[in-house]
């Protein structure tokens, strides 16, 4: 709805004003994002220095996975990381009261209230790295694959968003689990590895994280022109599924919100 777009525009503007009002904070945020963006790339370089191929993926294909992961995570960070990091604090300190008393969807406000502009750095790092990898692989990107990429990007981030929101909703009952977010970031990290990696040890493990295994591998396959339409459909399906569950679960959980006493 137009109302929500204009609210988001205002929120984004306010977040940006806050960001630039503190120089030390801004510099640290930029350093942070650069450091982790670089680490993310270094990670795959370090991991694969002794391996030309593993799980049916070549070294450069693995590089691509990590590059795309950076783009996805960068965007996830921009839109959701700060709001999700403050989620437990908002509930624990009773600030959720102010959210609930406003005539706007509470899930919207809890998800989009804070914007992390500096994280765009990660998107840039990821894009540059991915472009470099694709050129090293000699792959030509078609308009069709780019279009599919955009669709997958939206759906993939929606999958991660939905899963996160479902876990975070549990904080209404367990308000002291402030470090849950760290664990969820690690969960996101699972998406950059080939799904087959998890099959080895336990089928149960694989199926429990199955949606996550598709989020990054599917766009990677798409870009190198190994398009798998079933996987694309599955990602879209999971996106819708997890967002619906997150909404119902949140509405249900709010009945149990006891809000801090005065």
């Amino acid at each position: 709805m137009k109302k929500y777009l204009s609210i988001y525009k205002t929120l984004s503007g306010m977040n940006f004003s806050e960001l630039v009002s503190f120089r030390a904070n801004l510099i640290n945020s930029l350093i942070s994002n650069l450091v982790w963006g670089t680490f993310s790339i270094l990670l795959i370089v370090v991991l694969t220095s002794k391996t030309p191929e593993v799980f049916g993926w070549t070294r450069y294909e693995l590089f691509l996975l990590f590059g795309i992961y950076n783009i996805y995570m960068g965007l996830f960070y921009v839109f959701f990381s700060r709001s999700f990091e403050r989620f437990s604090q908002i509930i624990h300190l009773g600030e959720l009261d102010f959210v609930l008393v406003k005539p706007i969807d509470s899930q919207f406000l809890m998800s989009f209230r804070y914007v992390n502009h500096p994280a765009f750095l990660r998107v840039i790092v990821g894009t540059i790295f991915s472009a470099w990898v694709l050129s090293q692989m000699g792959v030509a990107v078609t308009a069709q694959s780019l279009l599919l990429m955009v669709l997958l990007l939206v759906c993939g981030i929606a999958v991660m968003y939905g899963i996160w929101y479902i876990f975070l909703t549990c904080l209404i009952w367990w308000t002291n689990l402030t470090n849950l977010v760290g664990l969820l970031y690690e969960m996101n990290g699972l998406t950059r590895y080939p799904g087959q990696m998890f099959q080895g040890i336990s089928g149960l493990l694989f199926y429990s994280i199955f949606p996550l295994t598709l989020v990054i591998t599917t766009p990677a396959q798409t870009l190198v022109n190994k398009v798998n339409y079933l996987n694309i459909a599955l990602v879209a399906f999971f996106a819708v599924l997890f967002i619906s569950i997150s909404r119902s679960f949140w509405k249900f959980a709010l009945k149990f919100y006891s809000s801090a006493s005065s």
Partner: protein
Amino acid sequence: MKAWRIFLLSFQHVLENRSRSFIWVLYVLLPAVVFMLFWIGVVKSSGGDVSGWNFSTITSYYFLLTVLGSTVIAHIEEDVAEEDIRLGELTNYLMKPFSYFWTKFLEETPWRLIQGAFGVLIVIAFIFIFGNFFTLASSPLVIVLALLIMVLAYMLCFTFKMSLGLSAFWLTDSRGLFQILEVLLLIFGGFVVPITLLPEAFSKIAQVLPFSYIVYYPIVAIQGNLSITQMLTVIFAQLAWIFVFYLVYKVVWSEGRRKYTAMGQ
């Protein structure tokens, strides 16, 4: 005894926050398992051996990493920088007749012990589920030395992080610094891969940094893959680094403390 009282109070606090402690352990376990799965794949496709690491040693490396990651890595730098220095909690510590360093030590240690306990439980569970492929030291002397290395690793990490936390005396926002150092610890400490599996250049850098003595060497010692001489060398290096960081701490502390009290907080 007052020290015991502080320790017990902190322990109580940890018990009350046991679900948080559990999550902290999962937080270390998850990436360790992921890297382990990765390397198992690599080992399989390399015919069972990669630079001296096989299926059994690599698996046990990452499981031990979970235990050590929860036990040995102190997270005290944020507490020192944010709560104590920036929010002024330091004043409470300064007014007490105990050393700040040792008070924080007694506060931090219960967390490490509880999380270490969780870590050990999880690893035992995994051993039962996945069978007996664990490499562990067997000779009592080796075990004793390995435990000593672990304790020194904790002391080293703690001293290092305390000095790091004190940077808040001069920096308005230490986050950037903390994160750079965390990444260095991850790579050169052996969290991602054992040091010997790093690319050439990185491996060389890891030798001169203290991080490998916090994580990598304790793990390898417990696995029983170090000779007695090597273990003694590690212990010597750990003591040297602890000494260095303690000196740094002392200097930074007296300078910073003067600055802190001068600001009338």
